[in-house]
């Protein structure tokens, strides 16, 4: 049986798709057979981040509506044999997804895979609720700003009531917090919420902290998940996150202000 992990946030633009791609890649690199599903029907992005947009033939909606088989729609990642992508449809909308259809797809995938990562659309409507409904675990992506924290709080409320686990009174969905775009400099100057404040409000376990990094945009635009860029702080932070997801203990990194060395202050050495 596969573990079903939903990557969700409520608010848009906080890094759900980037995180879903990076975490799925990290899980696959550690030897787990992983599939990442784009639930953002109508605003397909995951294929771009994963660099497989030119290989999309069939999509999730085709599979649900019986127009294509799962194996026809899944795309094998170029860089990792363990990783598959199930893209969303760009020409349809979220109403094309049905609860039964999603259940059947996830059940079928569960037979073959260790991890199923669901990349949720933004919002709290049908698309987001379908993405989270069958989840065993949830990674709630939050930026260090008040609106993102409040939306994450809302999503946590839905995870506790609008999922199969909640409705069937099973063990609740395991909720984990992933803070992205964290900039210790701006936290220090008071522009951004700090780690402790976010954790105090959301009151769930922190699974990772991804620093604001140029590497993320570079990775998105080149279609290579940032986990592959192990020279970058963000790439390392995602690897730490995946390690914690798999049960390893990893100390938190990149959350403290780095004192710039004398030379870098003179030469303006930026972070990678």
């Amino acid at each position, binding site marked *: 049986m596969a573990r079903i992990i939903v990557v969700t946030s409520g608010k848009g633009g906080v890094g759900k798709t980037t995180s879903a791609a990076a975490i799925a890649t990290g899980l696959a690199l550690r030897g787990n057979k992983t599939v990442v599903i784009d639930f953002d029907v109508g605003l397909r992005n995951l294929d771009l981040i994963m660099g497989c947009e030119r290989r999309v033939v069939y999509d999730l909606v085709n599979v649900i509506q019986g127009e294509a088989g799962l194996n026809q729609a899944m795309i094998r990642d170029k860089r990792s044999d363990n990783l598959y992508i199930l893209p969303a449809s760009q020409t349809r909308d979220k*109403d094309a997804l049905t*609860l039964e259809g999603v259940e059947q797809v996830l059940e079928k995938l569960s037979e073959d895979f260790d991890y199923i990562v669901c990349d949720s659309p933004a919002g*709290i*409507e*049908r698309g987001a*609720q379908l993405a989270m*409904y069958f989840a065993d675990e949830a990674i709630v992506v939050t930026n260090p700003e008040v609106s993102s924290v*409040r*939306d994450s*709080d*809302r999503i*946590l*409320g*839905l995870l*506790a*009531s*609008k999922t199969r686990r909640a*409705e069937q009174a099973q063990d609740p969905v395991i909720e984990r917090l992933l803070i992205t775009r964290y900039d210790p400099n701006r936290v220090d100057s008071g522009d951004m919420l700090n780690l402790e404040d976010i954790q105090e*409000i*959301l*009151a769930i376990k922190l699974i990772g902290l991804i620093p604001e990094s140029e590497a993320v945009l570079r990775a998105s635009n080149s279609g290579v998940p940032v986990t592959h860029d192990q020279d970058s702080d963000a790439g390392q932070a995602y690897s730490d996150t995946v390690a914690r997801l798999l049960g390893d203990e990893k100390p938190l990194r990149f959350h403290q202000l780095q004192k710039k060395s004398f030379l870098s202050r003179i030469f303006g050495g930026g972070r990678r």
Partner: protein
Amino acid sequence: MSLKVDQTATAFTFKGGMLPMTVMELASSDPERISAQLAGKLSQSPAFFQHTPVVLSVEKLDDTSLALERLCAVCRSHKLLPVAVRGGSEGIKQSAWALGLGWFPPQESRESRTLASVTPPPSPSSVAQDVGHGGRIFRGTVRSGQQISAAEGDLVVVGAVNAGAEVLAAGSIHVYGPLRGRALAGIHGDRDCGIFCHELHAELLSVAGNYKRLEDIDPSLLDTTVQVRLRDDQLSIEALV
């Protein structure tokens, strides 16, 4: 105005009534389909759709995907006025209440309730006695968008009430944690109850309809442990030591 005057001249009396009501028995939870069908009916008999009150019956639905708020909007846009919901899960009941709608139990179990509602409403003195019974304890974080209520008695929250969340009680509200959302005590008019919290940062505080917004709260009281109660029709917030 003194209290004595209020007690002698009653502003209203409760009476039982049986009014005819249209029940909208839903066979689908898809707002688009409902909207389309309503549009068809509207053209057939426009006279019917004049802000007619309706009860939405969801008994025949698997309501996991039911978007009550959207459904109400669809009804209103066709000049139907949803006033209550019948049947459905605990979640439906809560969201009906959150939308300001009434909730009726499903038809099978309704008989006993109808009898109960025919019995005369309790006199004010027995209402006062009932307060303190019932009540509710909630353990955990009340999150943005969630509404936790105690229709009778006090509500105790062991945890935080986050911004965008709402806690309501017929009696007092006790929050053993930060209160960042809205807290409404004495929702049925009990003026002797209060709000108690460990860390005050509430968006709104209300006791028996008298309220204060976050903006009205003395900043020196923020993030402290306080009690809120009514004094001379004014909401007073005092530090609890």
